[in-house]
């Protein structure tokens, strides 16, 4: 027990938790935007992969790190556009299309990577983002090293949560996005374009997901591996439900999740072989399922989530 206490009172633990949480913050936020507009985006797993690969590739080919992030976002938006065109005006099954996007984005990323590096035994590396200490704040005891010695993308993730929360709650655009997820007919009757709003939201959300992917290759690690996303996208979908479609709670949920994951890693080290390591690795997935079960009773889905809007046709 004292072990556990030691672990979770160490600043390094929280610093790791936040690092683990960062891609999930991006992913959950991106998925949340899509779903708030009424579109489930199961392309997330593939868009993560595409973001990780394209961001990394850009930097490897000589772009700077932020250019890599930008390219990842654009690639994400591209896949988002494809998903949106198929599911919004064409009204195709959001489930199946999303899975198709994941298959497409994943295989396209792997294919591209393999063309660039046909036979490498160890993955090529880049110089990733370095932690930035926020002057003043990073010197605070405990909180400083835990919160304010992160890489820039982590600060960006938190900043993005605030921006998205503000847009959704306080701007005419946010109201319109929420309304498209609640009742697209209401949006249409007020002369706004449901298609435009939904397509835009899915593109923006997908761009954010892809930035989450690029965090993995540009910040957390310094290389691209196959299968490195390992279900993070699906976990984000569970986190959106857990967060009741609220950006603030999404941040909280991702951090909580990051903390559990960090804890799992520490416990795995401290228990050293007494329990098979696979059991620890299962925890994030099991936890996500549990989170879904716990929140399911209270889940207040956007009313028009997964319901396509076809003009002149009543659902």
């Amino acid at each position, binding site marked *: 027990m004292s072990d556990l206490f030691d672990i979770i009172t160490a600043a390094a633990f929280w610093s790791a938790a936040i690092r683990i949480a960062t891609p999930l913050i991006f992913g959950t936020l991106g998925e949340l935007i899509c779903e708030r507009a009424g579109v489930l985006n199961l392309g997330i797993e593939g868009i993560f992969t595409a973001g990780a690969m394209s961001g990394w590739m850009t930097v490897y080919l000589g772009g700077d790190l932020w250019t890599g992030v930008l390219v990842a976002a654009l690639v994400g938006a591209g896949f988002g556009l494809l998903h949106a065109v198929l599911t919004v005006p064409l009204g195709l099954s959001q489930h199946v*299309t999303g*899975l*198709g996007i994941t298959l497409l984005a*994943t295989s*396209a990323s*792997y294919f591209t990577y393999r063309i660039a590096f046909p036979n490498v035994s160890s993955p090529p590396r880049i110089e990733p983002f370095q932690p930035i200490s926020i002057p003043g704040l990073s010197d605070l005891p405990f909180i400083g090293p835990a919160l304010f010695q992160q890489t820039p993308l982590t600060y960006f993730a938190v900043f993005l949560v605030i921006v998205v929360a503000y847009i959704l709650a306080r701007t005419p655009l946010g109201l319109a996005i929420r309304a498209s997820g609640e009742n697209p007919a209401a949006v249409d009757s007020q002369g706004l374009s449901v298609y435009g709003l939904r397509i835009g939201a899915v593109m923006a959300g997908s761009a954010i997901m892809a930035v989450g992917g690029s965090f993995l290759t540009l910040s957390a690690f310094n290389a691209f591996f196959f299968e490195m996303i390992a*279900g993070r996208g699906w976990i984000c979908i569970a986190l959106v439900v857990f967060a009741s479609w609220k950006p603030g709670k999404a941040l909280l949920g991702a951090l909580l999740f990051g903390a559990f994951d960090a804890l799992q890693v520490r416990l795995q080290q401290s228990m050293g072989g007494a329990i098979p390591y696979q059991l620890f690795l*299962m925890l994030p997935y099991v936890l996500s399922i549990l989170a879904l079960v716990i929140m399911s*009773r209270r889940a207040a889905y956007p009313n028009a989530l997964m319901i396509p809007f076809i003009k002149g046709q009543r659902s």
Partner: protein
Amino acid sequence: MIRLEPRQERSSALSIAAPVVAAIAALALAAIPLFIAGAPLGAAYAAMFNGALGSQFALAETLTRTTPLIFTGLAVAVAFRARLWNIGAEGQLYVGALAAVVVGTGMIDAPGFVLIPLLFLAGGLAGAALMAVPTGLKLKFSVDEVVTSLLLNFVVLLFVSMMLEGPLKDPMGLGWPQSEAIVDEGTLPVLMARTRVHAGLILALFMAVIVHIVMARTVWGFETRAVGSNPSAARFAGMSTSMVMLRVGLVSGALAGLAGVSEVAGLKGYLTQDLSPGFGYSGIVVAMLAGLHPLGVVVSAFFVAAVFVGADSMSRAVGVPSYIANLTVAVALLAVLVAGVLTRYRIRIQKPGARNV
């Protein structure tokens, strides 16, 4: 603006043409990545065709690859028909294989005609049991089964890894995480000499026919279709939608479990962590290309298998990464979805603001 107008009658010719067109479109679109990779297009397609269908050996390899895809394709088709989104066929395949290994590596000493059915039974039950989890959570807590069945895939793979490094580890395996081999009595017979095509294919075809008969001709199939297309009308008409869902979930999981047994007992002989190169996920493509029709699954599984086997050859011949196959199959999935829209709707494009006089 673009408007969709429902077609009055859905012609069966169109429904068959849609996946064919989608498959051809996907193959044609593969030219883009091939071009980017700098491969000679003609030679690449030729290598692909020959690798998949060009010789008896190639055909046999394609049929070997078709076998698990029929099972997972059926698993997905059955579930999707009831709008139960089982995306966990990959995990169900692995637990099926695991069950086969547990039962078939010496635990039971029985002749083949007893042991082989037992292996399939065990694998089917294991797959069904696994799918019972997301189905149950959906029915009891209305938890979206897409995410749960997906997440369970990761849990299962870790569990398999744990077993292969623990209790099921082959002591003679030179330290590799792999199980002991299935005993000879439990191994499926090979169908064509000097090939790897095994009796699993027969069972797969048989299951496709059975599933077709059940879906088209029985009360179970009728209820599945009704619940799938309008659950509230089905409930209103007196069907127990949860019973139907549960039944479908179990059948779907079992079918995917059979795929695992067939691979272990028919092809690999023992279980490793790379038993399936994503057969569960490809099953989604197979089912959608088949329009969720059980007999169509056989055809589309053959197509998908041919793409994968052909791409392997092509990859060796012209040096293009074999991920071209995954790419082609993903495009085929999206293409068949779009083609499906065209069979159901006419697309009319009208310019807003234009005078229609």
